[in-house]
């Protein structure tokens, strides 16, 4: 199966990339643009299904730094 881990900067952490993108979107003509935040999607393929608890642990320890980021797992089976 394939699933995606979405990692986003926490709401209260300054995201200068998001600010830069917001400014560009405004320049390009969408004057009503609000907050923009830039995160990342990590696509992972598995043979069969992954151990859900182990995957969650790896998200917390490696894929996401919970000091500055939040994550969620998107997939057919998990959550």
């Amino acid at each position, binding site marked *: 199966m394939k699933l995606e881990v979405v990692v986003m900067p926490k709401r209260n952490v*300054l995201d*200068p*990339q998001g600010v830069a993108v917001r400014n560009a979107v405004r320049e390009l003509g969408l004057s009503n643009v609000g907050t923009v935040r830039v995160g990342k999607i990590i696509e992972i393929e598995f043979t069969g299904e992954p151990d859900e608890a182990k995957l969650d642990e790896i998200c917390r320890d*490696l894929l996401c*730094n919970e*000091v500055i980021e939040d994550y969620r797992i998107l997939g057919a089976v998990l959550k």
Partner: protein
Amino acid sequence: MKIAVVRFPGSNCDQDCLRALTDGLGVKAEYVWHKETSIAGFDAVILPGGFSYGDYLRCGAIAGFSPVMQSVIGAAHAGMPVFGICNGFQILCETGLLRGALIRNRSLLFLCQPVYLKLENNHTAFTRLSEQGAILRMPIAHGEGAYYADDQTLKELEEGGQVVFRYVNETGQPTPEANPNGSRNNIAGICNPAGNVLGLMPHPDRSWEGRLGSEDGLQLFKSLVDTLLSVAA
């Protein structure tokens, strides 16, 4: 006395660190490859600057899980001096040896420039020979150097004296203009509660002799050597 300079794929200040120790102070220092599983025989560890593992995922994230770091983490908990410079600081935060994280510079620019730092704690293994309040000049060279920690963590770091270096102007004031990257509370370097683990974004390894533009960085390495000598005595 022997000091380890850890080399990750992508480290690029390893030679600077080694030479500051060997040529600057005449102490024995050796490279340790990231795949080593032990740092037995070493008395202190330097994690140099660079772009370990290409900065993939997050700066320092993958290095934190390298074989050698498992040994470094254990040694740090046992009291061994561990000094992370630039990428080394990012690695220390990723491993949890130091609190907080380093995020993208506020300006989004990679910054390569001299800065002034104020020493706020001269009771660490790396600052004991320096005067409290000393103003040091060193270069920074980073894209992700903005120190971030939540309010509660910041409060605990400040109250615990764990903020070791702050970005200041020439007269020692921590003004917003003197803050190059958007670090909270102008923080440039922090230590763990015991003071044996220090992380610093600016480069003492690029400021240890006059021809580099400043020799202020040398006193950090001198303090480290002094710490090791006092332990051995």
